[in-house]
């Protein structure tokens, strides 16, 4: 039976990954994800997990080693943050093009410069188009659950794509929360051994990573795009199986108090819990505000979003990254998704919580009020960077 334990979330992520019996773990230290690989190396050192822990000399090598291991048929895991993720950038699209089910936890952190070790989403947003499945956790329980779900989704032969599980740096990685921990037996029941489609081994000789000329390249990109879009079916299936076995429900967009809401606020990651509190307070004050928590970033859940915003007057999309010279990346995505919708809500794009700046209940109430003033068909501003001092 699952046990309720108090644990730092990064440690819990490591414990959850260990329950998945990965074969190869390769990682390089960078704050704030570091406790995940550190704790995994502890688990390996103590003999609780039979795996090769490869202490690589860079993040580029961490993901490269995971790609190599995955290509050889192993279950491979890595974790990183910020600049480390950017250092992996070169190999990110190769992992997905080669259809290798690597799982990576990202302790989300701002990109330099100025150098800043605290949380926002600019690291993962820079990797938006790499062909990975991207999940966002709001609290510790989701981190544990998603770390396990990620392997099952990634390795499904209908998917065969890498998955990143995003947990906010410090706000999640370094926070102690009570969590229900599944047992090894339960995870073994949920997650079968990886059965690779192809593996580089003399008994299953294959050439992987070949050259794609213009006559084949477009088709290979189409195949990757289809694979990522189709992965949603498997994601939903895996979430259903998870719910059946563990009783916890997941969906691409989780709604909170959206009944009768005229204004919706959209969040990703750890801000969602603060937003829930704020929405509850606004409801107490009679403000018709609800919350949409975006869990599945890639593949982007267009249908779920269109359904979720039906009837809303305005939608406040929060972003924890800036697409400089454009707007927030989530804001852009949501606008694009709703452009053709009849009676689409007015969109307010608030960029907030950059580089570890606190986002409070009061901030959400202020954004809710802004949402209440927004009018359909009238765009006041493309986007707004919230709380800039001196402005």
């Amino acid at each position, binding site marked *: 039976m699952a046990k309720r334990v108090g644990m730092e979330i990064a440690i819990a992520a490591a414990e959850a990954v260990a329950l998945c019996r990965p074969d190869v773990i390769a990682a390089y230290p960078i704050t704030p994800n570091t406790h995940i690989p550190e704790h995994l190396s502890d688990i390996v050192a103590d003999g609780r997990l039979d795996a090769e822990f490869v202490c*690589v000399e860079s993040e580029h090598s961490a993901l490269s080693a995971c*790609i190599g291991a995955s290509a*050889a048929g192993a279950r491979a895991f890595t974790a990183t943050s910020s600049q480390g993720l950017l250092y992996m950038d070169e190999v990110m699209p190769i992992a997905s093009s080669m259809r290798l089910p690597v799982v990576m936890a990202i302790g989300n952190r701002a990109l330099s410069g100025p150098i800043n070790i605290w949380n926002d989403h600019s690291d993962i947003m820079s990797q938006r188009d790499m062909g990975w499945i991207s999940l966002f956790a709001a609290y510790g329980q989701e981190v544990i659950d998603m770390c396990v779900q990620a392997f099952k989704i990634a390795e499904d032969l209908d998917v065969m794509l890498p998955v990143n599980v995003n947990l906010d740096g410090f706000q999640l990685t370094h926070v102690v929360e009570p969590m229900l921990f599944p047992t090894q037996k339960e995870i073994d029941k949920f997650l079968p051994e990886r059965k690779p489609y192809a593996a580089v081994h*003399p008994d299953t000789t294959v050439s992987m990573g070949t050259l794609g000329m213009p006559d084949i390249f477009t088709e290979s990109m189409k195949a990757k795009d289809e694979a990522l879009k189709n992965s949603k079916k498997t994601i939903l299936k895996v979430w259903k199986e998870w719910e059946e076995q563990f009783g916890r429900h997941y969906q691409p967009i989780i709604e909170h108090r959206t009944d009768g809401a005229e204004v919706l606020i959209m969040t990703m990651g750890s801000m969602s819990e603060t937003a829930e509190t704020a929405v509850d307070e606004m409801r107490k004050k009679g403000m018709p505000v609800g919350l949409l928590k975006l869990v599945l970033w890639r593949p982007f859940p267009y249908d779920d979003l269109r359904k979720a915003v039906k009837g809303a007057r305005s939608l406040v999309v929060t972003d924890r990254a800036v697409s400089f010279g454009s707007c927030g990346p989530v804001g852009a995505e949501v606008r694009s998704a709703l452009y053709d919708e009849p009676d689409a809500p007015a969109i307010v794009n608030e960029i907030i919580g950059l580089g570890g700046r606190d986002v409070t209940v009061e901030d959400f109430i202020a954004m809710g009020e802004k949402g209440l003033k927004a009018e359909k068909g009238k765009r006041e501003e493309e986007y707004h960077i919230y709380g800039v001092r001196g402005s």
Partner: protein
Amino acid sequence: MSIVNNFDLYAPRLVDQEEYFVHGHRACQGCAEALAVRLMCKGLGKDTVVVNATGCMEVVSSFYPTTAWTLPWLHVAFPNAASSASGVEAALKVLRRKGKIADRRVKTVAIGGDGGTFDIGIQALSGAMERGHDLLYVCFDNEAYMNTGIQRSGATPFGASTTTHPAGDKSSGKTAWKKNLAEIMVAHNVSYVATACPSYPIDFITKVKKARKVEGPAFIHCLAVCPTGWRCPSDAAIKLGRLASETGVFPLYEVVDGKYRMTVQHDTLRPIQDYLKSQGRFRHLTPDVIETIQARVIQEYNKLQDKINCLHAWSDLKE
């Protein structure tokens, strides 16, 4: 030497008849690197996984949906042959231990050109060697970024004209000396390090076989003449490889457990002009520059001789 002279007679008995790098690849005419890869594979045999850095050999051998490889082969990117191979090696080890793959030794071999090894890949290479993976890395060095059009690398020799460090009125080509990568590998305490050249096929294959036996990191630096980039006739590759050895520009030696040994001996070294004169990349060199190169070649050769004469195997130094 006699074996090389009577190659036709001995080769069928000495060399694996199986082909692992097969015809149909698109290497340039006279490419010594393609020959070297073919010979390397014969030294490795079928229980091998090859991890290839981006570069000439990857490009010419893997036009989807074709492949020139009958060995399992993986290409990921340019700088990470060593780190991708680290992952393959770790996977083969753990999967074998867990009984998920056949219980026999499969050797992981990473290959890269000089750009992918001396320059952009050296960090991953250094890390892999330091970690002690059961990994053979073979660098096929054609002394410039030939795949992208003959740009200068850390392996380009002094004085060579390349497309990014060309000879001109105020330039006589590259102004820095070639990195000594074999020494860098010896400094990593790699227990088998060798230089090789496909112009000496038996010597090369023997070294590959020795390196394969090592249960840990091993490194071979293989000089691969590139007629396209060296601006020499396409039938000159074998001859130029021999001249590289005969002039002392690229001595063929091995370092086993720290002990140096010349594997191809020459009683006297030929003058460097014999090597330089037939290569268009050195055409611009003036006598004084050639003299500078000659002096450096002799100095480097003597440094190597000194190591051969003086250094002991590490295992003899324990007391």
